[in-house]
């Protein structure tokens, strides 16, 4: 198995005439936590959507652990080991915690029944408890429907989903954007837990403090292109802001934007 978790080459996405993502070359190593920063509309979420198979890229190549991958849909990406916490919480409000964790990949029995195969509620509840324990997420009652939970609890459920399934790569798209201080802290603790367990992570975030607290490396997007690739130790907040606003462009990306 390759040491490179994820590699993209010339990853490009056009929406009609809009070039949302242009020639993105990205690479990350095992156990690494990488932040993706950039202004609104810089292409961060577009980049994530191409990797996770939610959208089909216009051109470019993606490798996961050395194997070139072409995901037809998000389920493909998940089966390959990419777990995503989306900006819009991909949770079904009327379902409870195990239902949401296992949505689209339920543990089932009597599989010969095809679409009418039976859900193994007991196994899913057990796996949910294990997953929550692993991440230190606390939820009073996992059989409550998600709509009765606070924003932080909901976000934790979304994140616990990634931890329940031994993932090869976790992607979080602004996981704390809508959360309060305490809830943000809880989410950040989960991210640290993932770091300790050596699980690679891509964190899309606007929060400078959070990024410098949590990750090893910062990749900056501007107007659909990657403009900087910075090690946390070699940079500071002002420097990153300069890249985000366009006051500066990384040496190797000169002429890109």
């Amino acid at each position, binding site marked *: 198995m390759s040491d490179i978790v994820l590699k993209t080459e010339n990853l490009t996405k056009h929406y009609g005439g809009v070039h949302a993502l242009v020639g993105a070359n990205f690479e990350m190593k095992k156990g690494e936590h990488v932040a993706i920063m950039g202004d609104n509309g810089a292409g961060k979420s577009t980049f994530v959507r191409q990797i996770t198979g939610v959208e089909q890229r216009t051109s470019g190549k993606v490798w996961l652990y050395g194997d070139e991958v072409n995901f037809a849909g998000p389920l493909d990406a998940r089966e390959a080991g990419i777990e995503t916490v989306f900006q819009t919480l991909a949770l079904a409000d009327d379902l409870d915690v195990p239902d949401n964790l296992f949505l689209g990949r339920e543990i089932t029995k009597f599989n010969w029944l095809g*679409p009418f195969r039976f859900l193994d509620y007991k196994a899913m509840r057990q796996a949910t408890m294990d997953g929550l324990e692993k991440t230190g997420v606390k939820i009073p009652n996992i*059989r409550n429907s998600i709509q009765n939970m606070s924003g932080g609890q909901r976000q934790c459920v979304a994140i616990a989903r990634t931890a329940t399934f031994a993932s090869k790569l976790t992607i979080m798209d602004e996981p704390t954007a809508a959360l309060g201080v305490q809830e943000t802290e809880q989410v950040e603790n989960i991210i640290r837990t993932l770091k300790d367990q050596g699980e690679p992570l891509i964190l899309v975030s606007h929060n400078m403090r959070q990024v410098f607290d949590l990750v090893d490396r910062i990749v900056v997007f501007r107007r659909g292109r990657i403009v900087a690739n910075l090690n946390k130790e070699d940079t500071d907040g002002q420097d990153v802001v300069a890249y985000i606003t366009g006051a500066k462009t990384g040496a190797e990306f000169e002429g890109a934007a």
Partner: protein
Amino acid sequence: MTDTSHGTGGLTFDKTKRSWPNELNILFALFVIIAIFELLGQTLPYMNDQSFLFDTKDRFDSIFNEARLQIIILQVAIIGIIALGVTQVIITAGIDLSSGPLVAATAMIAMSFAQTELVNGFPNPKALFGIWAMDLPVLVPVFVALAFGAFIGAVNGTFIAYMRIPPFIATLGMFLICRGIALWWSGGNPISFPTESFKFIGSGMMPVVWFLSLAVIFHVIMRYTVYGKHTYAIGSNEEAARMSGINVKRHKVTVYMIASMLAAFAGVVLAAKSETAQAGMGEFYELFAIAMAVIGGISLQGGRGSIIGTVLGAMVLGVIRSGFTYIKLDGSYQLMAMGGIIIAAILFDQYRQRNRA
């Protein structure tokens, strides 16, 4: 480790802490309505102390007025079968208006394959397809009807899921198309004289047997299978369902197909029960089926409700119908009361939603 939790308690799993099921509210409402009729029966001067549900005459050895109980459920059984399918459609946040005319169209189609060769010793005067389509085994009309239902459902589902036509519009179109098919099939003439085995499908309490066994089957499917879970997920948050890798479009087509097949089966049962099929059958059935679901707590926003709720909703409508007959009130009051109860059901649902948020 510092405690960053914001709730009370830690990782607990308490079976008793599940939220109060809405079905109990409907059951309660059902009992209240029965009690009201019972009370009216005792107090209204012209009622002579009759009881609504209990057996007050000592001629029979039973507690309940069994004839009334049977009628209550028998008169909602056929629409109830439709409601089982409509429930699934509404849970996906859709709607199906085509079921009433579909009942008529399938009744016509099924009946034309269920005719007897000889009627009272004479060749069947109303044979639609001539001699080859007569005295067929009962499975033929049933199979043709279900296939037709599946086809209509597939068309509904395809327009809604793949061509993004709002469910209301797509099924409204199909509403007219099916009524047209029902009229066109035999040039507006009724089709009659089914075989004995076809009649059996709708004889006596058979509609109730079909309704309740289908209700049990679909309760299990909606509650315990992947199909059911995905149906709820799509109605609850379609985007989340899609991101979770559920094939939302294909699933919707399946749901509409199942709903239309249930409506088609209701058409078969209705034709068998009436022993005739007419193009005007099933009028307002789609609306009563939706009403059963709504009274049963199925949210029109999707994602919430259950088959048990719909069965209880059907019972509420049945009790009201038979209650108004019992207190000798005109059918016009019946319609007004049903309308009021539907609106009350929606208001109650919204009240519940607000209280939860």
